[in-house]
């Protein structure tokens, strides 16, 4: 199927919804429903990829407008007692 006619995440979800609805209404020729199914699988993979895409990172924006990594004290998991 045409790989990148997907605009963005929300468009992909909307199209996926339309595809599923069409398939569920049924009575499509076999070839058409196979094509739609493939499109649906493609869309859902796209959505999952988008969900996992963001990077795990924590940064500090300093006074000069530069980004630097957050101090470890801020991001360490077991630091809940650390009050200053």
């Amino acid at each position, binding site marked *: 199927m045409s790989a990148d006619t997907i605009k963005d*995440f929300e468009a992909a979800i909307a199209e996926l919804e339309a595809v599923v609805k069409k398939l569920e209404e049924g009575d499509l020729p076999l*070839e058409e429903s196979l094509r739609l199914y493939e499109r649906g699988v493609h869309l859902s993979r796209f959505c999952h990829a*988008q*969900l996992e895409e*963001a990077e*795990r990172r*924590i*940064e500090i924006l300093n006074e000069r*407008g530069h980004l630097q990594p957050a101090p470890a004290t801020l991001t360490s998991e077991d630091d*809940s007692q650390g009050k200053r």
Partner: protein
Amino acid sequence: MSLFDLPFEEPEPEAAAEPTRTRARAPERRVHTVSELTARIRTLLEEELFEIWVEGEISNCRVWNTGHLYFTLKDGSAQVKGVMFRSALRLLKFTPKDGLRVVARGRVSVYDPKGEYQIVCEHLEPGGLGALQLAYDQLKERLAKEGLFDARRKRTLPALPRKIGVVTSLDGAAIRDIIKVLRRRYANAHVVIRPVRVQGEGAALDIARGLAAIVKVKGVDVVIVGRGGGSMEDLWAFNEEVAVRAIAGCPLPIISAVGHETDVTLADFVADLRAPTPSAAAEMVVARKDEFVSRIDRLEGRLDGSMHNRRHRLESRLRALDARAGLGGARGRLAMHGRHVGELSHELRQAIRARIAARERKYQSLRLALETFDLRRRLGGLRTRLVAGDGHLAAVRARRRHALDARLGAALARLESLSPLAVLARGYAVCWNGDRTQIVRDASALSIGDQVTVTVQRGELACEVKDVR
């Protein structure tokens, strides 16, 4: 040792009342003892000032080991000592500190041994609150009039936040809470923090500048602004016009998360979303992702379900066709038709034979007649008739055969439409096992490397199984 550990002594001396009345008259020499004077002062003060409110700034504030609080209240030109006993102190929601403006309620009491008076405080409240409340109300009204609180202005959060901007202090619990929630719920969150002061002089401006800076960071698509819990004064920066307007004017969807559930600031009114706490703000950002994950999962379920149904329907249709026109059925049909054809052929043969017999009989009788009667004269005529008769016979035979052929053809066409092979013409294929004895209905019956035969409309494919899914 506390001042008030020492007992106030001495009941009112009777003598005290007398001189007050006489003062108006001619001065009379009446010598008081220090104790008498102090007692009179105490009476005057304690009777007159037994329930007063006084506002001032706290200084020299100290809790003694008895648990009582001693302090001085002062304003620009005067000061007065004060004490608050432990029982009353315990009820305060805030800790009195030097420099804090307060309104105190209490009574004036005199400590005779030192000739000092002080206020015994029943209650303290942060002073200036009245003024702050007024400022809050006035700004709130003004912003409301400008339409900054309108529901129409509220934007929804992005479906999937790419980068989450946070404007808060690095020192408080708020940022830790936010990071903790994001870590737990959204492992791949990308967070950009702009550290700002969130209380004290200049904090509001700092917050406004922080917002302006964070929205410029490429990719940030949602902002959380806030701080952890504190007193009304601690949260005050979020009620100041410069901060509130910066939040209202934020070009990105913004969540306010100031203090606890019960704290409401003007920031909450102008933000797109108000979170009761910083942790809740993080949850809100992440909730959208959870919502999408489950929505996609549901859609995938339905997608597969619809295909499964479709396959199921096709399979049962094929089974039905199989039952009607499958090999056994087809053979039956074929046999029936065969019998029919056989009967027809037999009939045909009978008819032909009968015709031939009749003609033969006629021929014999004619021949007899010919032999019996004038042979030569009749011979020509007879021969003509004989030839014509033969021609007629052949025509009858041909017509009959033609009709039979047509019936046979129609029967075969009907048979054809019932055959599974006709289904192939509509695009289906039949997959046979290796020795072509069975149709493959279950992929798991085969293993990789097995040979199968796939029958399509025209011809067959010899295939090898490469994968079983």
